[in-house]
């Protein structure tokens, strides 16, 4: 019995390691600048994996070596100060070694570079829309009470910065390769989370506030957008597409988008349009 148990524990340990290296299930290749996150995971894997294997092997060994015998006595040793002290310090050092690189990467994650261009990701139950700042590079202010069929983003008409904002028609977003972009995340109803697995980044969108994160796409291609914060019955269906383009293709796509002003004109919403014009 002890031998069997020891072997099973050994097999579980070895099996876990084998599974790890042979697993076909692994992350899709990173398509943004956040390869550092992957590196931190790998570092954590090596350190924690080592601890896991050592402790499991130790257990297997003990089960086999110190199996119960009727006339045997266990060792009587309530404490070993020196050993406990050493183990505490080794653990503390190990933990610090994991934490430090993590905090360095986090620091760059929350510090948006100055040259990042801004855009708005707009979430609702259950879909995505996007807004680009237009020629002035500034996103117009919004308020939830302005939201209507004619003004789906709730742009404040009195704010001149909003007029040239490009309102992306459809839930397909294009991004420029190798240019840092800051996503300003907005939701008009419940929590959502703008998540593209290949970009690694994530941040909840919270009604009432604008949250953000930034990435630099490093690969052209076509990626899926998922909502990563539970948002009700349609959560699982809240998908979209992001396409990372080279400059030329991006320009073509951008040219197809219409400004807020144009949209108002198209909708023949004369009153709003006049109000918008009068504040120029």
């Amino acid at each position: 019995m002890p031998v069997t148990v020891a072997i099973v524990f050994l097999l579980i340990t070895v099996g876990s390691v084998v599974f790890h290296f042979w697993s076909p299930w692994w992350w899709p290749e990173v398509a943004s600048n956040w390869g550092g996150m992957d590196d931190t995971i790998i570092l954590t894997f090596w350190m924690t994996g080592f601890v896991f294997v050592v402790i499991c092997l130790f257990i297997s060994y003990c089960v086999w070596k110190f199996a119960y015998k009727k006339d045997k006595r266990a060792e009587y040793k309530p404490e070993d100060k020196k050993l406990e002290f050493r183990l505490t310090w080794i653990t503390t050092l190990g933990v610090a070694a994991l934490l430090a690189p993590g905090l360095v990467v986090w620091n760059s994650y929350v510090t948006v570079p100055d040259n990042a261009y801004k855009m708005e990701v707009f979430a609702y139950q259950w879909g995505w829309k996007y807004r680009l700042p237009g020629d002035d590079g500034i996103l117009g202010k919004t308020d939830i009470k302005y939201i209507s069929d004619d003004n789906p983003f709730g742009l404040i008409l009195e704010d001149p910065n909003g007029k040239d904002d490009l309102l992306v028609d459809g839930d397909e977003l294009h991004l420029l390769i190798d240019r840092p972009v800051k996503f300003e995340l907005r939701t008009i109803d419940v929590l959502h989370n703008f998540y593209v697995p290949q970009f690694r980044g994530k941040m909840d969108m919270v009604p009432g506030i604008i949250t953000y994160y930034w990435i630099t796409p490093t690969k052209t291609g076509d990626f899926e957008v998922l909502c990563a914060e539970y948002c009700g019955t349609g959560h699982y269906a809240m998908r979209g597409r992001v396409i990372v383009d080279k400059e030329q293709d991006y320009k073509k796509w951008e040219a197809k988008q219409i400004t807020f002003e144009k949209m108002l004109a198209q909708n023949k919403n004369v009153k709003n349009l006049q109000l918008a014009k009068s504040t120029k």
Partner: protein
Amino acid sequence: MSDEYEHKLEAKSDYTADASNVGASDIDAVPEAEVADQELYHSHSWWTTYVFSQDAKYIGVQYALTAIGTGLLGLVLSWLMRIQLAFPGLGWLEPAAYYQFVTMHGMIMVIYLLTALFLGGFGNLLIPLMCGSRDMAFPYVNMLSYWAFVVAVLVLLASFFVPGGPTGAGWTLYPPQAITAGTPGSNWGIILMLVSLILFVAGFTMGGLNYIITVLQLRARGMTLMRMPLTIWGIFTATVLALLAFPALLVGCLMMTLDSMLGTSFFMPAMVSLGEKLSYDGGSPILFQHLFWFFGHPEVYIVALPAFGIVSDLLSVHARKNIFGYRMMVWAIVGIGALSFFVWAHHMYVSGMNPWFGFFFATTTLIIAVPTAIKVYNWIITLWRGNIQLSLPMLFSLAFIVTFLNGGLTGLFLGNVTVDVPLSDTYFVVAHFHMVMGIAPILVVFGAIYHWYPLITGRMLNETLGKIHFWITFVGSYAIYFPMHYQGFVGVPRRYFEIYDSPYIDTSTLLLNQFITIAALIVGAAQLLFLYNIIVSARLGKKSKKNPWKACSLEWQTPQMPPEHGNWGKETPKVYRWAYDFSVPGAKEDYIPQNVPPSEVTGAKVEKT
């Protein structure tokens, strides 16, 4: 080991005069009782004995059975979800039902099974017996605590039968979504959930005060705090945490109830819900998350600390060796408990709170890994040069170490704020918390039931059935949750009713889902063996000897087994040592119970405790 005890000895040196055994009096000295023996309520009818019982042992069993019954519902719900995930083509669940099952499964398992079982169940059974008391300090309040729990469970179950069904808000109940139209059960279901939680907290508070006061005030003579079994330390500290943490949940529930029913805006900003402008304005959804996790993170330790304590005792008894580094273990429990109030926002790294909080909470979270690691070291060092009996409690304890280690180490991934970004809200998180606070504590529960079942019923559980149950449960649940981490690496998001054929997800991920589901069905079914075992063995099991595991702690030293009302017969026990005097050199037996006076084991070379 305890200085406190030595001081007491000196201070009360005059009591030896009236000790009956004059020859042994010096070494058998125990401080006098500080309060008179407890007057107990004696039941007169079947109703007051078995239903509205005021005996903590019965209340413990009542709590445990109610919790396990509710937990079985949680188990069945998990089957339904898993079948949907593995075979989406069957189309037998609506998305709304799926989310309702996810929510109810989570809440039932965390609160109504684990919390109730560890504190209400094991707390009531073991605190008076292990501390050498006759009962809890306030038996009547203790009874009320159980019945409040029953009402809370009934209200929770009632939500399955109201219009719209139970809430499908996820067990975290995040507003605004919990009370707006896009979520199932956003009218009736959520209100019943909140009311049920409020009742649970009220009931728990009655029980919790009892546990604390009993531990602090009603310990037997000589039972210093530093002689208490770690089980009691774990339950005691967890109760302190619960009394401090549950109020945060309580106010969160109350405020959300007001938002939902009276239209206040604690958690509700201005919003447009499915095309309709709501009248809320100015509230903060993140405030609820802070309240929820200020409760929610200590909650993890409310479940884990009793498990830590119990597993320490099981390992020690069945390895015939004292728990290694007892004092360090006590301080680790207390330290983890204190730290657990400073780490809550690691559940919120990507919640939209100020991202600079990430630095603080990542640091505190990784600090908590140190005392936790010390506990793991001390468990395995306890095995070293032990005399390990591979009894069922020992097997479950070993399995606990492996699963807890695994789940604890993946906690280092998620706690480290950067690593959390890609992994949060994926199946990595699901795998992590099931491993660390689902499987690991449940394995301890099983170990504990196999261990203390003779104390409750006077009979042993069937060993063969138990072994089959053990291997399927351990290996099976490892097979469920270990590979699940890798779905998280792929980026499969959690709380998805269906993943479709996303371009980045290989079809083999669906295969893995099917494998996991089949393993889950098998592990779940194996629990029927366990149920059969506990039901049938109560009548037909092999009669247990007194103290069948040769344990040192007091619960096995009662005059009758199972212990009777009042536990101790005429006189409560006197305690002369800690609960871990196993394999003491020079002693005749390989264990010296806590209530054996030094004069009876003069040859034993015990270290002072």
